[in-house]
């Protein structure tokens, strides 16, 4: 058995073309990512223009529903430290659990995912999110990634998973 293992442990060397081909793919991904960030930046600047931002946001951009919390809870939520309350909602009657992950909570790593509560199949959670452009997704039953059906998809699936674009406006400006 030692002879077998010794033979199998000999190094296998790849030629240089392997790395060249791979880095072409990686650079292409990098360029796509930069391009996408540019698109999201444009979306933010458009959404922040007050004259037509609301109308555009309704149809094009994931809307941050600041008003929902005030109406539902009958209390005012004051933005602080650049954080804005965002209400995430997903209608999923058959789901057993729904969480929200995004770049604002490090994609749920280290148990940072937002846990939504169920109200007759309507899952929701409100959390403070920093003003800016974000990507996020719902995780249903701890395994199925779902993009927000009410929001535009983030261009490309950055991590091989569906995600949505989110623009959070700074209410203090």
């Amino acid at each position: 058995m030692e002879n077998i293992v010794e033979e199998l442990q000999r190094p296998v060397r790849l030629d240089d073309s392997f790395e060249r081909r791979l880095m072409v793919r990686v650079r292409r991904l990098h360029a796509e990512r930069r391009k996408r960030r540019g698109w999201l930046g444009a979306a933010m600047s458009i959404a922040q223009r007050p004259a037509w931002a609301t109308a555009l946001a309704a149809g094009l951009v994931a809307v941050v529903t600041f008003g929902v919390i005030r109406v539902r809870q009958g209390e005012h939520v004051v933005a602080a430290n650049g954080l804005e309350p965002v209400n995430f909602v997903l209608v999923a009657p058959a789901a057993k659990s729904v969480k929200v992950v995004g770049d604002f909570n490090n994609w749920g790593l280290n148990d940072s995912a937002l846990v939504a509560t169920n109200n007759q199949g309507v899952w929701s959670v409100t959390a403070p999110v920093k003003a800016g452009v974000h990507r996020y997704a719902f995780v249903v039953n701890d395994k199925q990634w779902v993009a927000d059906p009410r929001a535009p998809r983030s261009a490309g699936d950055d991590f091989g998973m569906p995600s949505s674009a989110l623009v959070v406006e700074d209410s203090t400006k």
Partner: protein
Amino acid sequence: MLGLVSMESSDAELVQRVLQGDVNAYGSLVSRYRDRYARYAVHMLGNREDAEEALQDAFTRAYRSLSRCEEPERFGAWLFRILVNRCRTSGARRVRRSQTFVHDEGALLNASQEHPAEQTAWREEIERALGELSADQREAFLLKYVEELGYEEMSEITGVGVSALKMRVMRACDRLRILLKEVHSG
């Protein structure tokens, strides 16, 4: 100079640089792990072409999801897990090719100068015997003996229980002994 600095950087430092937009830092990670993990892929899939494809795919997936690498200092282990899964998918999708030559110029040069033909034949016999194992047994054997992982780590990578892995390794060893004995006695 830049290359030398990169080679001395830790995985965590390189990952951080990549996340900040430095693509060249990812090249350093590729250089660091490509040959090491090529060995596993070649032995697991049985031919260089499929192995290179699996490795390309694993590196690409790792790049795309790098921000989800929870322990950047253990990038290598994280990448290896992706590769093991990728090899499983590839192995399930393709029929292992009938001829499995792990042609490695470097290894051939290191082979016995007195009996290079015998060395090559022995290598091919081993590869052929490895190909006779089930994918599960081959995976467990390679992880245990060639990659020299502990059972706990193997379990973490494969999602298979320790006792089941021990059984697979034992059966793989038994089968290899029989197959290679048959070759020699034949």
